[in-house]
């Protein structure tokens, strides 16, 4: 049996184990498809991802498996083309393992909004894995795959990475092609990666990044993401934005952050306090811009071109649209479409949408000023608390939205950012966030690699 065939068999066994455990982290996979992947790899040259099995969030389209976005409205949909990232993963030698569960259309922070049931936290099944890329995070944390792709709109990879104790990296906006990512918030969406280690996440990101003529927002001639190996953090200035360390921060999160800050100093970094005053407004800004863009993007799901169709009571085309969308979308998606339509509607667009765009600029300007002052990286907690219990926040959408308070600002500013495990509290992982200058993933990943190898806490996680 070839190495690829062994990897396919092993991955299938792990996926079956995860399903048997009731993680509910996958939406589609089969041993037949894994074996077909192995046969393809056997015929291909060795690449940088040879030997790596990668899970795909099920909002990334593939021709050989359904793409549902965890929504009933796309039940049974199979794309006629592959996403650019899928083509690139395969060219680099990766084995596509499965399609992973997610919050419906990537709307959520707990992966409780999937039409196919919630994903369970791999350590404590009563808790959430974070979201919206909770299936991808849980698969990597459970050791099913070494890497996975997710998508970020406002922290949907970094937040579940923190909750599950794995590495999650969001690249700069425009670094990775979104051709074949089902659009949600177009000024925010970034395909992002999970890895068991910084090295796995880095090499996966390097393999999928780069200009794509099929996505005009990807930047041509961008600097390399490849981290230059370093043994310490000497010469780096790390900023601690005071707004990200509120007095009511969870004590376990604070303790892990304090220990990491001490380590940053010991490793030679110059650590200084900085201010990002408008970050406090990132969540309300995000929850205007994101629903507005979602309402526009999801208008295409209407029962005409694909997906199951409902004929409404009046039997005409508008009744068809309304009935199909009403029956096909879940509660959170409907809520966001309604909020997005409201903030864009006549009489309210200036008060809400235009205002949010202006505040988004101020949030971005804060980052620009801090990096212009000589700061190379920012360090913050990734989330205000460790993983919370399932059902704890579902009745109150605003409380759920606040789970993204530390991750939304970098998304609004389009900056590269990542979460890496920095400790545990009561057995639950805690993530620390690094944020870098636009298109400076290289410095961020190199520093993360040094931190990772120095953090005793990480050894516990593995």
């Amino acid at each position, binding site marked *: 049996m070839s190495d690829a065939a062994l990897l396919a068999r092993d991955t299938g066994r792990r996926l079956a184990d995860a399903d048997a455990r009731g993680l509910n982290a996958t939406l589609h996979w089969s041993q037949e498809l894994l074996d077909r992947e192995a046969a393809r790899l056997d015929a291909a040259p060795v690449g940088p991802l040879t030997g790596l099995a990668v899970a795909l969030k099920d909002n990334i389209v593939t021709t050989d498996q359904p793409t549902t976005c965890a929504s009933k409205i796309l039940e049974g949909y199979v794309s006629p083309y592959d996403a650019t990232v899928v083509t690139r993963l395969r060219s680099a030698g990766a084995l596509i393992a499965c399609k992973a569960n997610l919050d419906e259309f990537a709307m959520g922070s707990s992966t409780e909004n999937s039409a196919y049931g919630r994903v369970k936290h791999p350590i404590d099944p009563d808790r959430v894995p974070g979201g919206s890329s909770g299936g991808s995070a849980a698969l990597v944390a459970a050791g099913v795959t070494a890497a996975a792709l997710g998508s970020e709109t406002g922290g949907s990879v970094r937040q579940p990475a923190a909750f599950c104790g794995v590495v999650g990296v969001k690249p700069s906006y425009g670094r990775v092609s979104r051709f074949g990512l089902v659009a949600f918030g177009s000024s925010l969406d970034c395909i992002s990666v999970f890895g068991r280690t910084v090295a796995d996440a880095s090499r996966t990101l390097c393999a999928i990044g780069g200009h794509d003529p099929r996505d005009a927002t990807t930047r041509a001639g961008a600097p390399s993401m490849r981290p230059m190996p370093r043994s310490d953090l000497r010469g780096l200035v790390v900023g601690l934005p005071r707004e990200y360390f509120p007095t009511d921060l969870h004590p376990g999160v604070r303790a892990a952050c304090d220990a990491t800050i001490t380590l940053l100093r010991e490793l030679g970094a110059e650590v200084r306090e900085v201010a990002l005053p408008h970050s406090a407004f990132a969540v309300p800004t995000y929850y205007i811009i994101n629903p507005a863009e979602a309402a526009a993007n999801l208008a295409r799901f*209407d029962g005409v071109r694909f997906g199951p169709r409902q004929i409404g009571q009046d039997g005409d085309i508008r009744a068809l649209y309304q009935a199909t969308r009403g029956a096909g979308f879940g509660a959170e998606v409907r809520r966001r479409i309604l909020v997005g339509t409201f903030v864009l509607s006549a009489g309210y667009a200036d008060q809400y949408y235009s205002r949010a765009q202006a505040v988004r600029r101020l949030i971005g300007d804060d980052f620009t000023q801090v990096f212009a002052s000589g700061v190379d990286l920012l360090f913050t907690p990734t989330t205000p608390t460790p993983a919370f219990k399932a059902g704890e926040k579902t009745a109150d959408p605003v409380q759920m939205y606040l789970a993204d308070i530390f991750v939304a600002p970098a998304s609004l500013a389009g900056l590269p950012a990542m979460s890496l495990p920095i400790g545990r509290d009561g057995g639950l992982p805690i993530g620390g966030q690094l944020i870098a200058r636009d298109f400076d993933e290289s410095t961020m990943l190199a520093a993360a690699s040094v931190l990772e190898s120095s953090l005793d806490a990480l050894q516990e996680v593995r």
Partner: protein
Amino acid sequence: MIIGAAEVRHVARLAELAVAETDVPTLATQLEAIVAFVAQLNDVEVPPGAGAIVVGPDRLTLREDRVDPIPMSRTPAEMAPAFRDGFFVVPKLGGLAEG
């Protein structure tokens, strides 16, 4: 801002979204809470002329003005709920008088 049942029904109509009457009161409460939460942006001091941020490349890369076929493994006819003679088949548009 108070959001009532009438606003929910109006926005749902704009969004082409059927909402069950039994869901309207809950949606009104939730939308009101969300709108109250995002309304805190009105307290932010925004300098006059602060434009919207544009993330990503400074300039979009243009490609040659040429239509290349996208290699599709399945045709629209195979994906659509109803398709005939090169067209998506849908019921007629009604209710034009209502706008």
